[in-house]
């Protein structure tokens, strides 16, 4: 064995059959696992003629060779599919325990294809797959389903969809052990379209490690590095991700009221400091994670995981709401309904703006915390105006004749960072292969926090090289699959060393980054094959034309065009954003089959 389990499990829901077959090890060497391996398989399995919600679309669940080894944060897994929200290639990854448990069943990959005639749930115990009738579960919410199927943190883990997925909301998430999510892009809608309610895993296997002594040493060194870093040993556990709220507001890059402003007067009331002081119960951790950034929060009505910074922002600043208990409860409700919090919050904000301006007939208004919960319920069950919101802000705004009021890229709602105050972040959003997303690389480190070194956030020239590096690095980490927070204390070099110890293949830092670049280019090729083009590498007109009239980003718009030209050159792409043959040759992507270069 090689560090991989070397086995793909393929499940056909139409026929209620399954089979296993060997993983192509050359493919594994080039794409590792997680996002990379999932994308490589998606390229072969789903063509441009496939509707994301048709039975021909697939869900590809992937882990990596590090998963379940016990290396720090080796708990994560990915799902790859064609997005019903954007139509692009999509992968989402999640932590917790499910990925570790799936790896222990002895598989690297699970491909789910077809469509069950009736609702079904799948139970995977080591090598065996059992199909169960899910008629009784259909209609149930996430927390109830997870409990009914016997979720137990270290022994039995549950992925499921809630009403949002069943009702094919294009922002529906697949939920992971109640409160974690494969959140973005509508993964839950794809699962719902297949009449698949849940996937339960139990595994007893142990992944093989090629060089156990070297592995133990690197495990020890990584533990020391994470303990020595103030970011992973103090900042994340003490204040969680929401500690970013005040600094983003301070510098005038906190998108507010559907990006109409870049500072929110209520930021302090919804900050990480406030969350910690008044609502934090305790911290929690994913499997094999010494960082422990998860927050357990409590209001008078609920107690549960989260909320993370982006969720607080989406229901907070973006909706003009400073009521933190209402935001915590909206986050928990999204988990129970199976909705992506970023897209949900930003779509509500879009509806609020259009309603206030008379473009959309609803009573939604900025600042109305009381409207969050009923609107989310209406979205998940497609009741009333909720049905219009359930498919995201771009479809909603287009229906109202105002597509420019959707704060999205390629149809995916952007997170909290306003590109007018962070030029690199704007380029990153515009070129992100899955749409407006901060997990394809995030410039908040170099442009705001000085990590690893501060660069001028308003600088345009030369910015693309940082963006490309961050995108490639993120794709590599997503292919391992590890938590990006590990990278706050541990350099990329360590990831190459640990991968070498586990697989016996000698990777160096350069090869790790090349894996990321390979994945990025393949995602680009997939999107080109779907008909995406240079015109789609853009930002909402508001961010390109309307400068903030006050605050530290006053007078700035996104200077996207010069950065984009520089970015294409830096990527080895032509002026239309198409990878040149030389680049594809260099990355081993030259012989993939027909590619639309028009």
């Amino acid at each position: 064995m090689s560090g991989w389990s070397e086995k793909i499990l393929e499940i056909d829901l139409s026929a209620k059959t399954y089979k296993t077959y060997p993983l192509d090890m050359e493919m594994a060497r080039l794409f590792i696992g997680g996002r990379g391996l999932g994308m490589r398989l998606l390229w072969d399995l789903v063509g441009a003629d496939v509707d994301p919600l048709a039975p021909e679309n697939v869900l590809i669940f992937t882990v990596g060779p590090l998963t379940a080894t016990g290396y720090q944060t080796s708990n994560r897994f990915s799902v790859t599919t064609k997005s019903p929200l954007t139509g692009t290639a999509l992968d989402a990854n999640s932590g917790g325990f499910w990925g570790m448990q799936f790896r222990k069943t002895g598989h690297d990959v699970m491909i789910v294809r077809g469509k069950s005639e009736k609702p079904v749930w799948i139970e995977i115990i080591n090598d065996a797959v059992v199909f169960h009738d899910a008629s009784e579960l259909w209609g149930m919410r996430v927390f109830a389903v997870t409990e009914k199927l016997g979720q137990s943190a270290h022994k039995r883990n549950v992925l499921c969809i809630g009403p949002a997925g069943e009702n094919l909301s294009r922002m529906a998430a697949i939920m992971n052990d109640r409160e974690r999510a494969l959140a973005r892009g509508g993964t839950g809608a794809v699962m719902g379209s297949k009449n698949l309610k849940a996937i339960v895993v139990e595994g007893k296997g142990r992944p093989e490690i090629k060089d156990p002594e070297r592995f133990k040493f690197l495990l020890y060194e990584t533990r020391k590095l994470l303990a020595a870093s103030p970011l992973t040993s103090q900042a994340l556990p003490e204040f969680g991700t929401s500690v970013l709220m005040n600094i983003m507001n301070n510098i005038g890059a906190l998108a507010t009221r559907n990006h109409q402003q870049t500072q929110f007067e209520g930021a302090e009331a919804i900050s990480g400091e406030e969350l910690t002081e008044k609502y934090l119960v305790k911290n929690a951790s994913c499997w094999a994670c010494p960082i422990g950034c998860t927050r357990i929060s409590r209001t008078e009505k609920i107690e549960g995981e989260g909320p993370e910074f982006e969720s607080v922002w989406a229901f907070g600043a973006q909706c003009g709401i400073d009521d933190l208990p209402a935001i915590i409860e909206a986050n928990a409700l999204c988990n129970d309904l199976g909705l992506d919090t970023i897209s949900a919050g930003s779509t509500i904000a879009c509806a609020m703006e259009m309603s206030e301006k008379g473009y959309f007939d609803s009573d939604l208004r900025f600042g109305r915390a009381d409207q969050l919960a009923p609107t989310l319920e209406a979205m998940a069950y497609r009741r009333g105006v909720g049905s219009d919101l359930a498919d995201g802000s771009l479809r909603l705004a287009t229906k109202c004749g105002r597509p420019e009021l959707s704060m999205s890229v390629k149809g995916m709602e952007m997170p909290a960072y306003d590109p007018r105050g962070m030029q690199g972040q704007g380029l990153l959003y515009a070129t992100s292969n899955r749409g407006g997303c901060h997990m394809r690389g995030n410039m908040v480190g170099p442009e705001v926090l000085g990590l690893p070194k501060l660069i001028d956030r308003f600088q345009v020239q030369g910015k693309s090289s940082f963006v490309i590096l961050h995108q490639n690095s993120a794709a590599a980490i997503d292919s391992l699959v590890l938590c990006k927070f590990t990278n706050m204390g541990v350099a990329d070099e360590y990831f190459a060393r640990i991968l070498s110890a586990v697989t016996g293949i000698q990777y160096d830092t350069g090869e790790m980054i090349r894996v990321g670049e390979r994945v990025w280019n393949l995602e680009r090729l997939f999107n080109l094959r779907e008909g995406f083009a240079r015109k789609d590498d853009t930002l909402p007109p508001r961010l390109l034309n309307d400068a903030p009239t006050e605050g530290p980003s006053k007078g700035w718009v996104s200077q996207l065009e010069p950065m984009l030209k520089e970015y294409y050159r830096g990527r080895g792409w032509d002026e239309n954003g198409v990878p040149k043959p030389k680049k594809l040759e260099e990355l081993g992507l030259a012989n993939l089959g027909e590619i639309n270069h028009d």
Partner: protein
Amino acid sequence: MPAIKLYANLRQLAGTKELSVTGSTVRAALSELVKMNPPLGEVIFENGKLRPQIVVTINGRHAVELDALLTERDVVAIFPPITGG
């Protein structure tokens, strides 16, 4: 007088979110802050220099030069090493 705003654990160490200082430069203001709240010293400085990953802004713009002059109405914000997303 210039104001200093503190965030995350700096607030806990200082026991306040905000205070006023008389210093006419960022460096002088930070020195004054540490004199008033000695526990902040080792968090903000290392061998007399600002620790890496401490972020200081003046009116929301990153302070790249600690000898930058402050005016009466300036607001200096100090963030300890933080991250998120």
